[in-house]
Structures are given as structure tokens and as C-alpha cells.
């Protein structure tokens, strides 16, 4: 193992922690809006860290470009879908959770 | 001329022609009827071309892509394939002529492309020598058949089609599982190669079980026939004819082929089981047919019964191979013609009187004499009275049973004939009875009457053609060599 391996391992483990947190939020949060919040926030960052971890290992800039493209696409899709779900929920009349 | 005939690879033509025809019908819906009729007629000619080719050169084999099995897929045709292709082309042509007047405008634009693709699927099925390729043709055939069965719309047709689709998909999946086991057990999908490599092992037995159940479900052998009567009885008449005469034969052909090449030599009592189920089908189907009050359902249950006869050949084949299998082949052919004629005649009655209640069939004989005649002639073949194709088939079957002293099967064959006489005469009797209820009557085009009559004539004519037809079927020795020759 050389230093770059340690770096990418650290990045990817950090990413996995974010995924774990997001998943926990998805399962434990009380209503659809807060679940979406937990999911998208954590997953976007988590995926970003994983992509960075992989980019460290990449053999060429083209691969780095592809990885970044994947991240951007997931960001775009994730944000839009979260918005659509939230809007759908509002239209259905699902109330915000208040303590 | 002869050189040209043998130079063209007619098997490929038989697949591509209806395919191209179907696509053309889809692209130009206004010309669908003309394009469809031309394509089906061309298919009929191409089958003659293939027949000529096989008669002169023997077995037809075509390595697609030039690869040869096991890497590539081969097309294969012997006498048995030729018989199925010819039956499909003949019956298909008769039904097409009928459909040209039956479907109009938008309905014609829906019917023709699907029917031509079904024809392509059937031809591809009868020509395939590869078990996975057969799966694709099975799915093609199943989806086309379901789409056609749903053409009429309405609760009954849609419900029937839905049930048919689920049964068909389940059957294909079971078959595909069998393909997976055969391939992973013996490293090939080519039937001839599998025939050489297969030896008794759990994989083969499981494949036999899965493929048999899947194909029996699609062939609607008792007690897996539950989907057939609703689907066949609620479809438009020409579609019922196609489904009963041709589509159930497709899956039966695969089963027969696999049995002859791969599973038959293994033994193991499955043939006895098939014989029992066949017996059950004959008795149950005939009794149900007798009970029906609607003509179309009666004809559909008659199909359930007649399918049983095909399976009586399996237990008889062990020691009278050629006779028993020739009987099955002859029954398949004559049932295709006769059942198509019956459904088309039923369609005429429905169109004429607006209903198909058997009790109110009174004026049919006077007003639709040709249709009544077609129904009666087809009935002669279904009952197995001489001279008819049905008679030859049942006679051969009786011969095979008698040489082995299988009196149980002899009595089933005869009893089935008597029951068939019962339900055919039930219809004819009502058609002759005068009743004075007046019906709204609609004109039935002459072509529709003649199409039914000519198909029925074909079934009768087969009674005189036994030896040429059987010698043609024997090309390539599909049934193996046996001591009894027809």
C-alpha cells in the first residue's frame, strides 16, 4: 500500500459513513420531508467522497472526468427527484411534521 | 427450374417472407389486406419449394451465419417439419381468405400485421434446431396469439386473453429453465448434439419435467387446459381458428421433437403418464363439449378432447414407433384443417344470426347451406368416420394399440369417437330442426362460406392421400426405424 491507497481508502470510508448516516435518517426520521433532507444531503456528499477516493486511483484524466460526470448526474437527478417527491407530497396534503 | 428451386434456401424464405409482410402491413395499414393475402400466398408457394427441395435432396439444414452448431443456430427441416409447415400454410391461407372479408378497416389494420408475425413465428418454430431459439419463437408465438385473442375487446375476450398470457408466460419460463439445465449439463443447445450427449441424470429428468409441464400448459393438455376454452371461444372466429388449428400445435411440435430426439430414448414411464392425461383429455373434453349450449365453446372443448389423441401415441410408440407417430402426425394435420373449418363455420353462423346458441340454430341449413355442409364435413373428420383424415389418423392409432393388445386405449379411442359424434350431431340436429323464431339476419360473404367449406374438404380429402402424405412425412426418418411400417 502506498500513500495514495491510504488517501483513497480514507476518502471512501468517509463516504460510506455519510451513506450510513443518510440511510439511518431515511429509516428513522419522522416524515417524508425530513427523510428526503437526510437522504439527499448525505448521499450527495457521500458519493462525492467515494468519487474522490476513486479519482485518486484513476489512471488518466479521462477517467477522472467520467467519475465527475457520474457525480454531477447523480446530483442533478437526486435534487430534482427529491423536489418532485416533496412537491407530490405537498399536493397530496401530507402535513409537515411538528413536534 | 429445378436448379432454381433447389438453389434458393426456402427455409429462410419461409421465415423472412411473413416477417417482411407483417412489417409492410404495419407500415401501410390501408394496404394491409392486400399485402397480407399476397404474403400468405407466397408462403404457400415457398412451402412447396421447400417440399420439392426436401423430396429431392433429403433433410434441409442451414447453418445461420455460416457458424454451424453448437456456436451458431441451425435451421432444420425433415418430413415432420414439412408436414407442420404445410399444414400452417394451407390452413393459414384458408383463414386469410376468410379474414379478408371478416375484418374491415381499422380491425384489418390491427389483425394483419399480428397474424403475419404469428405466421413467421410458427414457421421459425417448425424450422428451428436450437432449444433456446425455440424459446424465442415460443414467446413470439405466445405474444402474437394473446394480442389476437384480445382483438374482440370486452370482458370475456380480455379476461380470456389475460389468463392465456399468464399461462403462456409461465409455460415459457418453465421451458427456459429446462433449456438452462440442458445447456449447463451438456454444453449445447442444438437438438441433434443434445441427443448424442444426453444421458440419464438429475439435470435431464428435471429438464424433462420442466419442459414437459411448460409445453403441456401451452398445448392445453388436460388438466392444464383451463385457459383454452375462454380464450378460444371469445376471440373473433378467424382468430379462434388460428389458435385452435395452429398455435397449440406449435408447442406440441416442440414437445414431440424433444421427445423423439432427446427424452424418448431415456424411458422412465413418462409416456404412460402422457397417455393417461391424453385419456383424461379425450373423456373430459368430449363430455364438456356435449354439455355446452354455445357453439363456440363446444368447438373449443372439442379441441381440448382432440389434443388428447395426440398424446395417446406416446405410450404406444415404445413398440410401434412409426405407426403411432404417423398417427399423431396425421391427426395433427387433419385436426388443423377440420377445426379451422369448424371455427370458420361457427363464425358464419354468428355473423348470420348474431348469436351462437345451439338451440336456436334453426334456419342455418336453408340460408347457409355451404356453412352447414362445412361444419358437417369437418365433423366427419373429428369423429373419425371414413373417408377422412381423422379416420386415417385414428385407424393408425387403433392399429398401433391393437398390435400391443392395449385394449384400454382401444376403448378410449372408440369412446372418444362416439362422444365426438354426440356433440357434432347435437349441433347438426338443431341446425335441421325447424323453429319459427325469426332472427335478425346478416349477409355472409360467399368467400367466407367457401373458405370454411374448402378447409373441411381438405380434411376429407386427406382420407384418400394417406400413402403419399405419410411417405413425405417419412423423409429424414423423424420417427426412427421400427418394425411396423405404415
Amino acid at each position, binding site marked *: 500500500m502506498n500513500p495514495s491507497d491510504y488517501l483513497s481508502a480514507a476518502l471512501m470510508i468517509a463516504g460510506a459513513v455519510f451513506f450510513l448516516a443518510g440511510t439511518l435518517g431515511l429509516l428513522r426520521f419522522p416524515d417524508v420531508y425530513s427523510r428526503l433532507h437526510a437522504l439527499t444531503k448525505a448521499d450527495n456528499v457521500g458519493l462525492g467522497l467515494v468519487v474522490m477516493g476513486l479519482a485518486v486511483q484513476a489512471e488518466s484524466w479521462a477517467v477522472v472526468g467520467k467519475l465527475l460526470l457520474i457525480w454531477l448526474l447523480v446530483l442533478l437527478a437526486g435534487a430534482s427527484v427529491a423536489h418532485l417527491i416533496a412537491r407530490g407530497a405537498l399536493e397530496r396534503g401530507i402535513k409537515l411534521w411538528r413536534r | 427450374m429445378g436448379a432454381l428451386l433447389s438453389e434458393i434456401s426456402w427455409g429462410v424464405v419461409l421465415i423472412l417472407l411473413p416477417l417482411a409482410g407483417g412489417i409492410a402491413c404495419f407500415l401501410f395499414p390501408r394496404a394491409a389486406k392486400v399485402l397480407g393475402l399476397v404474403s400468405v400466398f407466397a408462403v404457400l408457394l415457398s412451402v412447396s419449394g421447400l417440399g420439392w427441395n426436401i423430396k429431392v435432396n433429403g433433410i434441409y439444414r442451414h447453418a445461420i451465419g455460416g457458424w454451424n452448431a453448437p456456436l451458431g443456430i441451425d435451421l432444420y427441416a425433415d418430413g415432420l417439419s414439412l408436414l407442420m409447415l404445410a399444414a400452417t400454410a394451407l390452413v393459414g391461407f384458408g383463414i386469410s381468405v376468410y379474414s379478408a372479408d371478416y375484418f374491415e378497416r381499422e380491425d384489418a389494420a390491427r389483425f394483419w400485421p399480428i397474424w403475419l408475425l404469428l405466421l413467421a413465428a410458427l414457421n421459425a418454430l417448425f424450422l428451428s434446431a436450437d432449444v433456446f431459439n425455440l424459446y*424465442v419463437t415460443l414467446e413470439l408465438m405466445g*405474444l402474437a396469439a394473446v394480442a389476437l385473442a384480445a382483438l374482440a375487446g370486452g*370482458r370475456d375476450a*380480455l379476461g380470456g386473453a389475460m389468463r392465456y*398470457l*399468464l399461462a403462456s408466460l409461465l409455460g415459457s*419460463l418453465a421451458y*427456459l*429453465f429446462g433449456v438452462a439445465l440442458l445447456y449447463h449439463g451438456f454444453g449445447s443447445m442444438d437438438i441433434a448434439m443434445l441427443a448424442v450427449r444426453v444421458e440419464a441424470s438429475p439435470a435431464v429428468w428435471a429438464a424433462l419435467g420442466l419442459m414437459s409441464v411448460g409445453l403441456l400448459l401451452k398445448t392445453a393438455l388436460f388438466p392444464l387446459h383451463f385457459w383454452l376454452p375462454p380464450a378460444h371461444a371469445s376471440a373473433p372466429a378467424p382468430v379462434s381458428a388460428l389458435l385452435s388449428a395452429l398455435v397449440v400445435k406449435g408447442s406440441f411440435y416442440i414437445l414431440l421433437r424433444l421427445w423423439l430426439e432427446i427424452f424418448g430414448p431415456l424411458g422412465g414411464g413418462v409416456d404412460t403418464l402422457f397417455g393417461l392425461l391424453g385419456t383424461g383429455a379425450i373423456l373430459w373434453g368430449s363430455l364438456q363439449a356435449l354439455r355446452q349450449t354455445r357453439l363456440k365453446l363446444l368447438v373449443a372443448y372439442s379441441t381440448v378432447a382432440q389434443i388428447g389423441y395426440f398424446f395417446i401415441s406416446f405410450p404406444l410408440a415404445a413398440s410401434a414407433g412409426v405407426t403411432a407417430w404417423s398417427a399423431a402426425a396425421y391427426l395433427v394435420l387433419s385436426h388443423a384443417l377440420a377445426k379451422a373449418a369448424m371455427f370458420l363455420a361457427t363464425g358464419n353462423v354468428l355473423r348470420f344470426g348474431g348469436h351462437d346458441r345451439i338451440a336456436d340454430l334453426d334456419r342455418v341449413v336453408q340460408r347457409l347451406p355451404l356453412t352447414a355442409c362445412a361444419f358437417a364435413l369437418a365433423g366427419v373428420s373429428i369423429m373419425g368416420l371414413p373417408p377422412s383424415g381423422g379416420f386415417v389418423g385414428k385407424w393408425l392409432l387403433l392399429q398401433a394399440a391393437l398390435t400391443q393388445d392395449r385394449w384400454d386405449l382401444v376403448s378410449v379411442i372408440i369412446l372418444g369417437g362416439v362422444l365426438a359424434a354426440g356433440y357434432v350431431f347435437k349441433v347438426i340436429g338443431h341446425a335441421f330442426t325447424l323453429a319459427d323464431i325469426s332472427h335478425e339476419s346478416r349477409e355472409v360473404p360467399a368467400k367466407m362460406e367457401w373458405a370454411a367449406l374448402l378447409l373441411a374438404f381438405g380434411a376429407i380429402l386427406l382420407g384418400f392421400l394417406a400413402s403419399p402424405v405419410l411417405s413425405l412425412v417419412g423423409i429424414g426418418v423423424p420417427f426412427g426405424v421400427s418394425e411396423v411400417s405404415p
Partner: protein
Amino acid sequence: MSAAFLFALVGVGLFSLGLYALIVHAHLLRKILAINVMGSGVFLVLVALAKRTGESQPDAVPHALVITGIVVAVSATALALTLMLKLTAETGRAELPEDQGK
């Protein structure tokens, strides 16, 4: 025992689960899902056993067969869903006519 057989057994399990659901459930959408799960099971058997080559490169033929199978499955699913919708529009219930009122 190897990964090939592990996944092949999972395939057998999925096939059986799907068949059970196909028999037991009346709702057509559920039956369609069941057929799809069964199909996945068969595909899994077909591909898992292709890994028995003993090399890193598995047998490519079953892979191609399964891609064909996936396309066939989506075609059949589309047709089945359309039939289901039309039938429901006629009868008001997404069940086979004979199963209704059971």
C-alpha cells in the same frame, strides 16, 4: 460450493417464490410481478452456472441469452399491463373474471 452454485440456488429460490405468488395471489399486478421475479430466477441460474469455466472469463453465451430474455420479459410485461388495465376498465377489478368474488 462456489459463488456459481450459490447464486444458482438463489435463482431456484426466486423461481419458486414467484411461482408460489403467481398461484396464490389474485391481483393481476401482483401476478405480473411474480412472473418477473420468476424470470429473474431463471436468468440467475442461466448466468451463475456460466461461471464454472475455472477462468476469470465466464462463458459468454448464456450472457447473451439472458440479455435476449430481459428484452422478452419487458415486452411481455408491457403487454400484460395493458391487458390488465383494459380488463380493469371493463370489469372494475384487476383480477381474472373467474377469480372475482372468491
